[in-house]
């Protein structure tokens, strides 16, 4: 297990490095002069030249990349052009809100998706199974920003059950949780459908296997067979799927944060793009990438913890 974890961590570092290279290329290829953009139209050529040198833009490309790369690994993601604060600090301030949103989305999708999928598999071929199937496809098809807008209109504006905007009072966990309900639903609802479909399919496969027949031949109660003997195996592919799905949830989070006017990395990137605050965009995207890679690693480790066969192969 330890060797596996170290190996996967090494791979994660490589992935982040490649992501950095791509990110650097992207910024480098954006047309226009960053110094000119930062200083605005009234700056003199001398001022622009000064800033270019300060930003290291006069150096060869590979030197620029190396500077960016080595600084980033030391946690230095440059400075926010507008506030002149370190980008790392600014992003880290916003990160907890986005993390809460993602975990809220995962909670919705897991607590609804797994039981629904399991139920549909046990009741396969019945009306209940069909209804779950149609609903799953429906929620997968609806984009998360549409869910966000309708959730806001129905539950916050019309019914006034839940708050419409913000992330709640700092320090007040209860208030923050109430503010999290609708945005995390917007992020997680589509995944309820994915997970329900996935769990149903893998449950049906597992329920056909020989060891389930053995469990029945031993007279074990059907409930024990479904939840202990079959579901434990059937959720393994779902965990892997969720690890990959976190990428999509991160992009849904951008919309949810904008619609619900919540702080968070998505909102930060959105605002930074509008103000052409490139160091902030780069820093936030990089942090998001690292988050994605790390959560994927966590998903793989969870699979290892749940499946002794995977564990011993490592």
């Amino acid at each position, binding site marked *: 297990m330890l060797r596996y974890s170290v190996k996967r961590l090494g791979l994660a570092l490589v992935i982040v490095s490649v992501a950095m290279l791509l990110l650097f290329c992207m910024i480098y290829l954006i047309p226009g002069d960053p110094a000119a953009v930062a200083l605005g139209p009234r700056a003199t050529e001398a001022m622009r030249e000064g800033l270019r040198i300060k930003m290291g833009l006069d150096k060869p490309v590979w030197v620029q990349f190396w500077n960016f790369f080595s600084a980033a690994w030391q946690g230095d993601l440059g400075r926010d052009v507008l506030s002149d604060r370190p980008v790392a600090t600014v992003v880290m301030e916003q990160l907890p809100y986005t993390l809460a949103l993602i975990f809220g989305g995962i909670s919705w999708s897991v607590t609804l998706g797994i039981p629904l999928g399991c139920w549909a598999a046990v009741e396969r071929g019945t009306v209940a199974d069909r209804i779950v199937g149609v609903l799953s496809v429906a929620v997968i098809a609806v984009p998360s920003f549409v869910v966000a807008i309708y959730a806001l209109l129905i539950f916050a504006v019309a019914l006034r059950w839940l708050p419409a905007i913000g992330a709640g009072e700092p320090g007040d966990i209860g208030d923050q949780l109430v503010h999290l309900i609708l945005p995390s639903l917007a992020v997680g609802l589509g995944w309820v459908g994915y997970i329900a479909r996935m769990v149903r399919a893998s449950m049906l496969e597992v329920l056909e296997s020989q060891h389930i*027949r*053995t469990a029945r*031949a*031993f007279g074990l109660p059907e409930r024990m067979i479904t939840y202990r003997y079959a579901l434990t195996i059937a959720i393994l592919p779902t965990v892997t799927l969720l690890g990959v799905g976190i990428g999509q949830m991160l992009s849904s989070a951008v919309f949810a944060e904008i619609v619900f006017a919540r702080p968070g990395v998505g909102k930060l990137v959105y605002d930074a793009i509008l103000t052409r605050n490139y160091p902030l965009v780069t820093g936030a995207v990089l942090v998001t990438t690292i988050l994605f890679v790390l959560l994927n690693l966590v998903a793989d480790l969870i699979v290892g913890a749940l499946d*002794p066969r995977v564990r011993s192969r490592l």
Partner: protein
Amino acid sequence: MTVLAIKGLNVTFSTEGGQLHALKNVSFEVPERRIVGVVGESGCGKSTLINAILGLLADNGSVDAGSITFEGEDLTRLGAARMQELRGQRISTVFQDPMGALNPVLSVGRQMRNIQYRSGRSRNEKDARSEAMLRQVRIPDAQSALAQYPHEFSGGMQQRVAIAMALMMRPALLIADEPTTALDATLEVATIELLQELQQDIACSVLFISHHLGVIAELCDDVVVMYAGEVVERGTTRQVFHAPCHPYTRRLLECDPARQSGRTRHLPTIPGEVPDLRHRPPGCVFATRCDQRVDACDKTPPDVAVAAGHVARCVLAAAR
């Protein structure tokens, strides 16, 4: 005393191609403390027979006629709850492929504890019972084996674990569904010896399903020969192996590679194919492949008692 008595059992499956008559008029008995072997080719209805006894027929299958009497209760009439109570406690099963038969993500100890869920014992007592059972099937270091997972054992060890699980509740009947087919020859002998020893100790009856004639001859007291969902011949092992009365049994014995004397380029086979069970021939089911066919074979053959306890479903048996 008879532990299991099957009388006139008929099982059909409704398929897209029509009704499939999988078991036709199957009758035989498993007496107390005896080992009864069931032989037959693949597709002869051995698995259907097991599923019918266990009450685990697929949704499209049903028992149309006949009875399966186990310790005085007709299993075909039992409710699902009572049937579930018997499985694993009074009737237990060892399956062919030990790796596939054990749950891959639960430890052996956990699975053995779950089988005892009805016993009302404490967790420690259950684990002690599991450990004792593993020791009895000669798993080395039984205590740490409880914490291990099925894939950590070799094939032979897995099958011994499966046997330990099946016999843990001291059932009256053990169904062994080709338990040695997936094992190599030396392990096969060891497993057979272990089964014999445990059968003596627990004093249970065994329904031993196999297509390996040598194993059947070695292990079983009685033999039931199945062909295309029918019991074509049954009797003691001596009767069936030394004086086979059904042409199918004779051909089957002739085809046993172990009986070949001298060198041969081709192993003998029975020409023809098993009939499509959706369209059973009206008369004898073996008639199309039989080299002793007579006109009377077009009618349903009678079960002829050729000796005490020796029955063959063939018109020629009556003439002998």
